[in-house]
């Protein structure tokens, strides 16, 4: 059976700012809430689609330098923005689709997550917004 090595190197932009060089982990999940519609007579639970509530979680190195993590995120907490992610920095295509969450909300921004002898990293989560994907 063939195997492949996948070296993850996605392109991440937050509010149009390229944050790839400060990001070490990204997890985009498209979520459509499940509304239970099970009724009498059913022998198994049944669900129907509710509102979309996708999330993008990023692990970022914290930096207070100009044009870096803090400068990008500080004014975004408590507001909505647009985030984009695609598997590689190559041109957008069917094999390198660009996913976008437009109007997603940043609820929490950790300011400092310091430990002796370790780099300061923060996890941030963008919630909601309209999901779309571009292939060209």
């Amino acid at each position: 059976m063939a195997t492949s090595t996948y070296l993850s190197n996605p392109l991440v932009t937050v509010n149009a700012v390229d944050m790839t060089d400060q990001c070490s982990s990204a997890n985009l999940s498209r979520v459509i809430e499940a509304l239970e519609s099970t009724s009498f007579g059913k022998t198994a639970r049944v669900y129907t689609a509710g509102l979309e509530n996708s999330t993008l979680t990023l692990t970022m190195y914290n930096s207070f330098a100009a044009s870096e993590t803090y400068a990008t995120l500080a004014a975004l907490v408590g507001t909505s923005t647009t985030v984009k992610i695609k598997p590689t920095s190559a041109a957008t295509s069917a094999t390198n689709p660009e996913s976008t969450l437009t109007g997603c909300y940043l609820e929490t921004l950790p300011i400092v997550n310091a430990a002796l002898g370790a780099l300061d990293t923060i996890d941030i989560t963008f919630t909601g917004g309209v999901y779309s994907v571009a292939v060209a």
Partner: protein
Amino acid sequence: MIYIIASTKLGIIGDTFVPADGINVAALLFGGFIVEQSTPKPKKPAKTNTDTNEE
């Protein structure tokens, strides 16, 4: 009002930035990624004296 890119993380410095749908412009201004530039007012045309008397 137009916006000028001030960080390579956003694009080429000096280029005009046109915010796409959903972009938080206030956050970009706060972070110093863009700067505001007032739209130049169109120059008034030069005054010329024209003789409208037809004799």
